[in-house]
């Protein structure tokens, strides 16, 4: 999926996969797409383990495959870098902070979510999460969408998911269907392009 890897990259140490994903797990609030800014920083910009395109591909696949998207992405990146053990290290890294934090808080401080300063801090953090995702979206749209068809797909995907939810239309369109729909569009374009080429 990426064409821009020319020289042989040095082998990534397994512990680096573990610690990078531990940072992702320890500092993302909300999970899912809220992780994207952190993943971009740790896996694309800082290390070049994967490209922006690959990260988007993993998200698309994660949307249609079972499980938590964070785990899916960690497994993909780890596998690509260091095979099975890399996948295991990255996955363990992304899960470990959650496991430790929840276990400790549940055992020692079960009313953590009701503590006043925690609630205040979270109201701030939620704003930051929104800003960070918005910045990522703007960057993605600017860098990754190259033609009119891309813009149409992007806007359509946005409206299909955001509109029913915002206007409280009483139904929801699952992102899974959007992903499947877009995949079909891609396959159809390829099919007709090939047929057109043959004539």
């Amino acid at each position, binding site marked *: 999926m990426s064409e821009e890897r020319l020289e042989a990259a040095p082998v990534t140490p397994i512990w680096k996969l573990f610690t990078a994903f531990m940072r992702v797990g320890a500092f993302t609030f909300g999970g899912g797409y809220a992780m994207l800014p952190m993943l971009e920083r740790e896996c694309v910009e800082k290390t070049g383990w994967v490209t922006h395109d690959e990260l988007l591909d993993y998200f698309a696949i994660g949307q249609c495959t079972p499980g938590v998207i964070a785990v899916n992405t960690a497994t993909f990146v780890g596998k690509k870098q260091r095979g099975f053990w890399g996948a295991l290290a990255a*996955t363990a890294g992304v899960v470990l902070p959650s496991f430790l934090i929840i276990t400790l808080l549940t055992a020692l401080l079960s009313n953590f979510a009701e503590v006043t300063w925690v609630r205040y801090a979270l109201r701030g953090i939620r704003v930051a999460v929104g800003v960070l995702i918005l910045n990522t979206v703007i960057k993605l749209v600017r860098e990754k969408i190259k033609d009119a068809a891309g813009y149409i797909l992007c806007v359509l995907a946005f409206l299909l998911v955001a509109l029913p939810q915002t206007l409280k239309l009483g139904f929801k369109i699952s992102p899974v269907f959007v992903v499947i729909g877009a995949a079909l569009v891609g396959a159809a374009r390829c099919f007709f392009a090939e047929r057109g080429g043959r004539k």
Partner: protein
Amino acid sequence: MSLILTLVLEFFKIGLFAAGGGLATLPFLTELADKYPWLTSEMIGRMVALSESTPGPLGINMATYAGFMAGANTFGSPFAGALTALTATVSLVAPSFIVILIVSRVLEKFKNSRYVKAIFGSLRPAVAGLIAAAAWTVISATLFNFSAATVGEAFLLPEIALFAVMLVITNLKPLKKLHPLVFIGFAAAAGVAMGYAFGW
């Protein structure tokens, strides 16, 4: 022992069938609360609150919490809770780990196929749209109160102000390259300060 086995089976099942992450696991966990004595619907409420107030993927946080409750309430010990929490978490993660290993092998094989390239070519803009929708969900829920009685109350001004400030500072040339967690920390501090100053 039978509790461990129950947890392995139940959470493996959740991990296998809850596609799309995080909140998709919630209906399954509610079902667990109906089925077993160690999880109650009150705990589910607390579980969501705690999972949303702590870092990490929502699905993992919730599985750890439910798993902890299973051991702690059955054996009355937090150490049993830690063990069952680990069991539940690992079981939840296992299916997606296995599925992705397989998918990634298949993808590696076909990545030069014209069809696969075309499919991902169309998927990427669509995923960008999905991420935009997720951004909109987070932002609208943070800045506006849709159930407010009056139009004036619908705008959460402290949040809107902080949003505007952060949008500017995260895009300033010298600050742009800072790690996202710096901004998360800044916003947390601003939240605490504003909370105590204005009584949010």
